[in-house]
């Protein structure tokens, strides 16, 4: 009997979060040994077309299961529908396809993944607890238009509203360390009374923390972020980073594959939102 | 004064009368084009040796082979008893051969000094550029060519074409050499500069340098050269001592037959029509304080404009053609004032302008003869915006025939034509628009005698047909044979106007120097 083929469609593998996730799936493939993994990433985060291309290529290659982290929650619906019609088991993970759009296209598809919004809210609340009501904060956003960036900003906003924080400014730094460093330095000049920063990912938080150090404000301004990449380990250790959110990316894709294989073997169809773990990781001082 | 650099030019060896260079059966092909097919000649140390021949005869190709730009396919070159096969311009220079190429090789946005010293820029002890020394050397070199009054820090882009040519010559002279090759150095010079150049060449010759002089002006050749080698169709026909021959012989050897004296053939019946162009009180930005310029051209008349380099002849034509703005004054065509905003308006009013710089403004070098011929008259060879290639080829073929163009195929790039033939394509481009007024700036620059005669007779017959022509030229004989009237400019002002019967070189030169 031939092993089932799993087509894994990731976002940009240049992003270490997805890179790590991919490593997790490779381990998983090896340890299970009963399926073949084909993984594809994209050139950059906005390269939606290459994800669609990847779906089409996988349909051509007649894979059995497609496991996909959509770069855009709406653009992927139609090609995935085509894949389902071709008899392929499709698992949507990491970023949920847009519910409204799914309905319009008559697509029933479960989502396996974390809740970015409540994750971000966890971080935001951690910051709010530290600052108290009325704390003045800024947000460093991810790529404008990117779904997880939007979700995370919503999560931060939830925390801000619930805990009466004051939002002084919000700008994108396109997920990038250097840009976050520049953008935040300038925000700090414009708003010297900033007390807290919410960064939509850890890479940007690193840039923010460098800017705080350069301005000599590392002690009195708190930073929270998202992702828990290894590089922020030392910053959590000494308190420069107040908190970040771990969504256990390493296991996320592997879990999704696991679920896909189960369905492929004739298990029950999935439905709704199968939430995966998220955890607030706090400074350990 | 003679620059010290020239005196050091010749590190003269034994002055025996031996041949220092001999070329035997040299052949060179460019793809299918047989540029050289058996060239033989030799150089005697210290002589001035002329190379003459029609456009495309292969003079420049030989020059480029001798100076290491091209490799030759077949034949032998012996330089000072050794086989000579330069593989780069540098190795040619190291063998003592310097050159001024026919095309400009200047660095437009660098200074005169930097251009002159470019081959070996002086360095300080620290290895940096020694600007002081560079400027000194450049000033010396500029003095030798009589341009001592121009700042050597001036950028080339600010110089006119003649001055650029002189800078090129200065650059070649700046370097020591045994053999100096000048490929049509006088083509862009006026009488005055030409004379200056000859004085320089005389001095160089005395210091033992062998000069190879390429020119279409036989008077120049007979003026300064010792021997002349005649090219025809990529072959050398013969080499003669100047004192044993005369211009008529040389011309007939060049073209392979005795040339009818078209030049002398002046039609006597002159019936000029109404005034085609009138210029009133024209003041241009180059000389905002000069008095306005006034002149007119009648239908069927050829008016020449003479003057020294920089006198402002080109600018007048460019102003009429709306290539530059005027400060004040009026231009009237057929008695009606016109305000051209751009060359397009001028072309629509059936003006045509053959510019002095065909490479930059006249031709699209990398496109075909046919394309260039139809460039200004594209509406004639197209239909509702669609090209009619058959018509276009026909048009190009017609004019090629009319102008005696030498070419391979109509689809060949203009760049593959020799200089003179390129000029004919420019003419074709404008004549195909059937203009009312044709303005020509140095129309026969770099054109061989035969073609020149053809061009003259074409221009004359155009005038006969009622076209008005303005010719700017630095060759007085050209103006005097061609024109019905000559306007003399000096320092941006009209200093005189001569009718045909009162044409004389002396008179014209006097007027030209009047405001200097």
């Amino acid at each position: 009997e031939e092993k089932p083929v799993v087509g894994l469609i990731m976002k940009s593998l240049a992003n270490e979060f997805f890179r790590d996730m991919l490593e997790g799936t490779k381990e998983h493939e090896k340890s299970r040994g009963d399926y073949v993994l084909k993984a594809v990433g994209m050139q950059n985060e906005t390269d939606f077309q290459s994800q669609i291309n990847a779906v089409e290529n996988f349909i051509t290659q007649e894979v059995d299961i497609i496991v996909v982290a959509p770069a855009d929650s709406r653009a992927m619906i139609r090609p995935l529908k085509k894949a389902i019609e071709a008899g392929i088991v499709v698992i949507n993970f990491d970023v949920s396809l847009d519910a409204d759009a799914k309905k319009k296209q008559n697509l029933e598809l479960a989502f396996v993944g974390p809740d970015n919004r409540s994750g971000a809210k966890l971080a935001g609340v951690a910051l709010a607890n530290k600052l108290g009501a009325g704390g003045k904060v800024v947000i460093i956003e991810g790529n404008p238009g990117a779904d997880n960036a939007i979700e995370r900003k919503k999560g931060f906003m939830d925390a801000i509203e619930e805990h009466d924080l004051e939002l002084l400014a919000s700008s994108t730094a396109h997920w990038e360390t250097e840009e976050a460093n520049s953008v935040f330095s300038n925000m700090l000049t414009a708003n010297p009374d900033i007390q807290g920063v919410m960064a939509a990912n850890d890479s940007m938080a690193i840039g923010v923390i460098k800017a705080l150090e350069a301005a000599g404000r590392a002690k009195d301004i708190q930073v929270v972020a998202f992702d828990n990449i290894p590089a922020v380990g030392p910053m959590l250790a000494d308190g420069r980073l107040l908190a970040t959110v771990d969504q256990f990316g390493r296991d996320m894709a592997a879990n999704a594959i696991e679920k896909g294989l189960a369905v492929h073997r004739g298990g029950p169809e999935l439905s709704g939102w199968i939430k995966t773990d998220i955890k607030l990781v706090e400074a350990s001082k | 004064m003679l620059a010290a650099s020239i005196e050091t030019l010749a590190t003269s060896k034994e002055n025996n009368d031996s041949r220092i260079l001999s070329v035997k059966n040299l052949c060179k092909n460019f793809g299918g084009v047989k540029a050289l097919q058996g060239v033989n000649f030799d150089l005697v140390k210290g002589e001035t040796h002329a190379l003459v021949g029609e456009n495309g005869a292969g003079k420049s190709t030989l020059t480029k082979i001798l100076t290491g730009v091209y490799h030759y396919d077949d034949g032998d070159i012996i330089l000072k008893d050794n086989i000579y096969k330069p593989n780069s311009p540098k190795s040619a220079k190291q063998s003592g051969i310097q050159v001024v190429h026919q095309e400009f090789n200047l660095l437009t946005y660098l200074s005169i000094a930097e251009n002159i010293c470019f081959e070996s820029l002086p360095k300080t002890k620290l290895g940096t550029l020694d600007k002081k020394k560079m400027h000194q050397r450049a000033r010396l070199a500029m003095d030798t060519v009589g341009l001592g009054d121009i700042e050597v820090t001036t950028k080339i882009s600010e110089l006119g074409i003649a001055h650029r040519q002189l800078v090129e010559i200065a650059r070649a002279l700046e370097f020591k050499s045994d053999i100096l090759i000048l490929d049509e150095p006088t083509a862009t010079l006026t009488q005055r500069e030409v004379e200056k150049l000859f004085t320089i060449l005389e001095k160089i010759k005395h210091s033992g340098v062998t000069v190879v002089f390429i020119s279409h002006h036989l008077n120049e050749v007979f003026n300064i050269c010792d021997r002349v080698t005649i090219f025809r169709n990529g072959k050398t026909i013969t080499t003669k001592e100047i004192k044993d021959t005369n211009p008529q012989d040389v011309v007939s050897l060049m073209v392979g037959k005795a040339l009818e004296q078209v030049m002398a053939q002046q039609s006597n019946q002159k019936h000029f029509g109404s005034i085609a162009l009138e210029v009133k009180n024209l003041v241009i930005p180059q000389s905002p304080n000069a008095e306005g310029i006034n002149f007119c051209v009648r239908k069927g008349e050829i008016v020449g404009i003479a003057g020294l380099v920089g006198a402002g002849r080109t600018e007048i034509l460019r102003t009429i053609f709306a290539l530059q703005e005027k400060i004040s004054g009026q231009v009237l065509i057929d008695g009606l004032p016109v305000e051209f905003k751009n060359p397009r308006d001028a072309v629509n009013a059936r003006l045509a302008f053959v510019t002095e710089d065909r490479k930059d403004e006249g031709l699209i070098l990398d496109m075909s003869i046919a394309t260039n011929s139809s460039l200004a008259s594209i509406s004639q060879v197209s239909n509702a915006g669609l090209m009619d290639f058959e018509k276009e080829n026909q048009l190009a073929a017609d004019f090629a025939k009319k102008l005696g163009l030498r070419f391979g195929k109509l689809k060949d790039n203009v760049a593959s034509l020799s200089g003179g033939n390129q000029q004919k394509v420019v003419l074709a481009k404008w004549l195909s628009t059937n203009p009312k007024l044709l303005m020509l700036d140095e129309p026969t620059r770099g054109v061989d005698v035969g073609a020149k005669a053809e061009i003259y007779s074409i221009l004359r017959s155009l005038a006969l047909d009622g076209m008005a022509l303005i010719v700017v030229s630095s060759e007085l004989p050209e103006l005097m044979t061609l024109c019905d009237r000559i306007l003399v400019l000096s320092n941006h002002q009209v200093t005189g106007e001569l009718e045909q019967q009162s044409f004389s070189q002396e008179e014209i030169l006097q007027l030209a120097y009047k405001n200097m």
Partner: protein
Amino acid sequence: MQSEMKIDMPAQHKKMSLKAIVRDAGIGIALLVLILIFSITTEHFLAPNNITNILTQITINLILAVGLTFVILIAGIDLSVGSVLAFACVVAGKVITIEGLDANTAIFLAVIASLLAGTLCGLLNGLISAYWGLPSFIITLGMLNIARGGALHISEAQTIYSFPEQFNDFGSASLFGIPVVFLVALLLVGIAGFVLHKTVFGRMIYGIGNNEEAVRLAGHPVFWYKVMAYTICGLMAGIAGIVYMARLNISSPIAGIGFELNAIAAVIIGGTSLMGGRGSVYGTLLGAFIIGVLANGLILLGLNDFMRQMITGVVIIVAVVLDHYREKMTTGS
């Protein structure tokens, strides 16, 4: 020696285009080599399905590259095409989702809106760079930012979706296995080829790329020809925007980031000179195929992303080096 004129022009003409085709096809050798390699090393490369995929995948790059061919032929460049695509796409998205319009009207208006938006951006690029004679590199870099900012602003950084079904169907429709959107692109190539090679306008484009001054002196309105070239490029970006929408069923303000480099690469690999005046849109077609086939084949090979990126870089370079040798061979003999 004085060669007699050959009057058998038709033959001459035919010969010329044959040679031109050979020259254009040159880069085709690199393409054939690629196709050969992938056919041997991967299982599905030649599957009809996969060929359909490749055609779909190169469509947008090809459309952009067709527009860029005009601009590059006049020795210009347009860095804004990716952003203009997004801008046109978002404008069309806004129009197509206006409430209360019936589907056909909405589609019609959206298409018009997209083309207008693209044309406008191109026109501005052209007017500014031609009027002041400024380097188009920097002007279109400015436009890159303006159009992207505009797209984000108009859409408030939200993806626009839920378009009429006919519209979405068009994006995935195919004719005898060939995607309709690719046929549209091919039609554009044909039109562009006709315009460039058979019309006065095309002649002027080549002329300007070779020697702008000479064309101006011959009495032609160089300014407007240049503006036209940029405008055409903008129009193509607008068309690409609509195709993007139809294919992906969304309008995204972050669509097309970095597309300009791929499109320029297609043009250059296709043999058009960045110095202007030389090249053809058929070469561009081949260039777009090389890029598309490469991207597709490397994925089929199952190489990891980073290797793929490196190999893509190497192949781009090798393709132009090979083309250089081919050109030398054809002109040298």
